[in-house]
């Protein structure tokens, strides 16, 4: 039995997708979390001065998407064939770009300015993406992003848009009925629901 230790801040952020993959597939792991003030203690021990890091029987793997992809592939959430796997990769990369786009918003302390940056981000980046995404979901026709069943790509979209709507309101995905349905579907999966109810409550 492989031992997984996922090392990250006590936040959802870029660590949450790996956690969701493991919880969805009901794979045991050590969910190692530390508070921001403790970061200097752990930073030097990471391969590139960043977290998340996944230790697999003590061997370290860095980069949030490399970690989540490895776990998805090991535990049957990556897609049914090569092409589906690449499609899933593509969607997760889109989420990576969106996460990066939220950084200026999260770190803006002036409330008015934050609202402004958020509106710009929604208008110029999120909404155009969601328009394309709705088309892709309709085209695929199964309710899932890739193929006929859930993949880590669906978890990635849940992982990003669930906190977004929580923080900035349902209007973020109001005009994307297929995505809304997908996010709700993931939220109601028993293993996910149970994890969300019991995980530490964090702002990010």
């Amino acid at each position: 039995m492989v031992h997984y230790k996922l090392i990250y801040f006590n936040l959802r952020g870029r660590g949450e997708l790996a956690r969701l993959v493991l919880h969805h597939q009901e794979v045991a792991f050590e969910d190692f979390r530390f508070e921001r003030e403790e970061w200097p203690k752990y930073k030097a021990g990471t391969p590139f001065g960043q977290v998340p890091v996944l230790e697999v029987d003590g061997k370290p793997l860095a980069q949030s998407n490399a970690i989540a992809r490895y776990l998805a592939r090991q535990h049957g959430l990556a897609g049914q064939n090569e092409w589906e796997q690449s499609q899933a990769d593509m969607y997760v990369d889109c989420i990576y770009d969106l996460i990066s786009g939220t950084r200026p918003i999260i770190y803006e302390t002036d409330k008015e300015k934050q609202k402004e940056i958020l509106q710009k981000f929604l208008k110029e980046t999120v909404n155009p993406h969601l328009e394309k995404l709705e088309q892709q979901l309709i085209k695929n026709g199964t309710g899932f992003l890739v193929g006929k069943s859930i993949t880590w790509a669906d978890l990635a979209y849940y992982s990003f848009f669930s906190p977004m709507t929580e923080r900035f309101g349902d209007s973020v995905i109001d005009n994307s009925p297929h995505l809304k349905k997908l996010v709700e579907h993931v939220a109601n999966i028993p293993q996910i629901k149970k994890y969300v109810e019991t995980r530490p409550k964090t702002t990010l």
Partner: protein
Amino acid sequence: MPVYKLHYFNNPRQGRAELSRLILSQAGVEFQDIRFAHCEWPAIKPTTPFGHVPILEVDGRVLAQSNTIARYLAKKHGLAGQDEWEEALADMYADNIHDLLNAVAVPFVEKDPVKKKELYQNFMRITIAPHVAAVEKQLKKNNTGYLVGNQLTWADLAYYAYFSDFLEVKFGSAFLKAAPRLKALIDRVKALPNVQKWTAYRDATYPEDKE
């Protein structure tokens, strides 16, 4: 052999399509290297899956996102790693480069020459230097001359594209003085016959980026 059509801007000449071009070239695989002018982009943009390039057409099906494309090609053509763990490590390194490309975009797009110089200096000191030190440590640990396992993967090509074909060309090799293993790796990749063939063809065929 599938028909590959890789679509990207003609400027930057390298940018986010170069890694895929290197993978295909190193693997000796033919591809259509489609480059379009920025004035053509408004017409092309709505035809892409997410309004971005590069995109890869594979026998008519379309893949987007630069690292997804590169990973797909690397896997298809024996450059992804020898088992799933090595594949994950290669993914990790490719993601490092993806982050570094995002980070260098800031000085790259700055128009004020004084501010640009300052941004690049800070970038080299704050972002590049620590990363070079970290990678050097990993290369020492792996001890094969390659980033992953004991043979070339797309991770090595990604580091070559960024550190040799971009940063070294721009700033010289001084920033690699304390990283002999990284320097040796990018030199080794640079000297690969198929890489040399590709860069010679590219340099002769496409004009240098005006920055």
